[in-house]
């Protein structure tokens, strides 16, 4: 695939992330592998709705040198490290959806509670250790957290998902967010001993804490 076609994949995935409430504003970033040594990655600070195919940056995953009209995302190190470690991965999404963020702040793994989760995530979704955004510490922690999995939470930050292509990476992030929401609902019912989940049930539990 040429870089314009790959760029179109990133443009389309950004719009899908927005439409599915998996990303807000200019936050989050995505990439696709070009070949063994390079990736195409979304730029820093541009609105998903205004992104064009040729706005993406080409980044060498070994040297981190980049080419393009715009500076690539400051989290490019995480994308590159995942491609270096995982030859079967061709697409990475890093974002901060709200239910995944809940798991990231309690720093608890999400267990698989159905077959689809096991198939998509390849096991329980772990929480990578905390690192300040854009740091090598965060990159190393994320690579370790996602080892042997297709996703990991990033402590107090968000989530990283990886797939054999962008369709799979998107499916993973979407289902992971849905699974986290379901998990919170299950936990609410367990703790309140009620039968039917409502937002008010959770809110009232919190108020009475």
């Amino acid at each position, binding site marked *: 695939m040429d870089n314009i076609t790959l760029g179109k994949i990133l443009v389309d995935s950004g719009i899908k992330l927005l439409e599915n409430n998996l990303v*807000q*504003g200019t*936050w989050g970033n995505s990439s696709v592998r070009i070949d063994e040594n390079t990736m195409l990655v979304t730029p820093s600070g541009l609105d998903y709705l205004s992104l064009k195919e040729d706005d993406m940056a080409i980044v060498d995953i070994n040297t981190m040198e980049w080419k393009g009209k715009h500076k690539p995302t400051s989290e490019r190190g995480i994308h590159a490290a995942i491609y270096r470690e995982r030859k079967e991965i061709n697409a990475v999404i890093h974002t*901060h959806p*709200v*239910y995944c*963020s*809940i*798991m*990231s*702040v*309690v*720093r*608890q793994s999400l267990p698989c509670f159905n077959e689809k989760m096991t198939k998509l995530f390849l096991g329980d979704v772990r929480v990578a250790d*905390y690192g*300040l*955004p854009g740091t090598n510490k965060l990159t190393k922690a994320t690579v370790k957290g996602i080892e042997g999995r297709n996703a990991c939470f990033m*402590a*107090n*930050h*968000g989530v990283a998902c990886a797939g054999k292509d962008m369709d799979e990476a998107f499916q993973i992030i979407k289902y992971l967010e849905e699974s986290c929401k379901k*998990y*919170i609902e299950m*936990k*609410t019912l*367990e*703790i309140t001993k009620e039968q039917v989940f409502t937002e008010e049930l*959770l*809110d009232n*539990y*919190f*108020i009475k*804490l």
Partner: protein
Amino acid sequence: MEKIINAIIDYSKKLYQAKLTGEKDYILYRVDNNKACYVEGDFSVLTAEQVKVIDYIEDNSLAAKILRAKKDINVVMSVAPSKVMVVAKARKDIPAVLDDMAQIVGVKAKVVSYDENKILKEFKKANSILIADGGAITTGRTLNEALTCAMVLEKSATVIIGASVVGKYKKINFIEAKLMRLVYKMKYSKKNQENLLSEEKTNG
């Protein structure tokens, strides 16, 4: 002035669409050294005709007092995001549990009872606060900055409420949260915000 008013109406719609509003919210926008645009009401149906120009130096409202006290901001918003209201009802502060909260709001957003002196005192060190049994007041150098504070507060409120049934949330280390806020303020510097402010004033 027409462009500023259009920008305010545009942001009131954005706040409504992002589900950050209640039945009676307001926006106060500093135009110059004594004039400000003020609008209040149901943000789903606001029109440009409802925006009033006030003398915020003379005005006795809480919003005007905040604007007078905080020289570094141009916008004061009162909003009522649903999860922020739950946290405010519980009279709990929203700590920086997520990087975006640390960067955009700071180490914490405190819940303060509706007492003007207490609110003004808290605003000396904060850009956003929660009102006990109410919503939130956010501020910013631009409309976009105040809106972003409201969005981040609502997300953080949703996260700490959800976390309560899973386990104990872990806050970001105080020093790291402070560092992130500093880096964010430098990145989105005064010059950068002046450009945004100029856009809001000229693009409408």
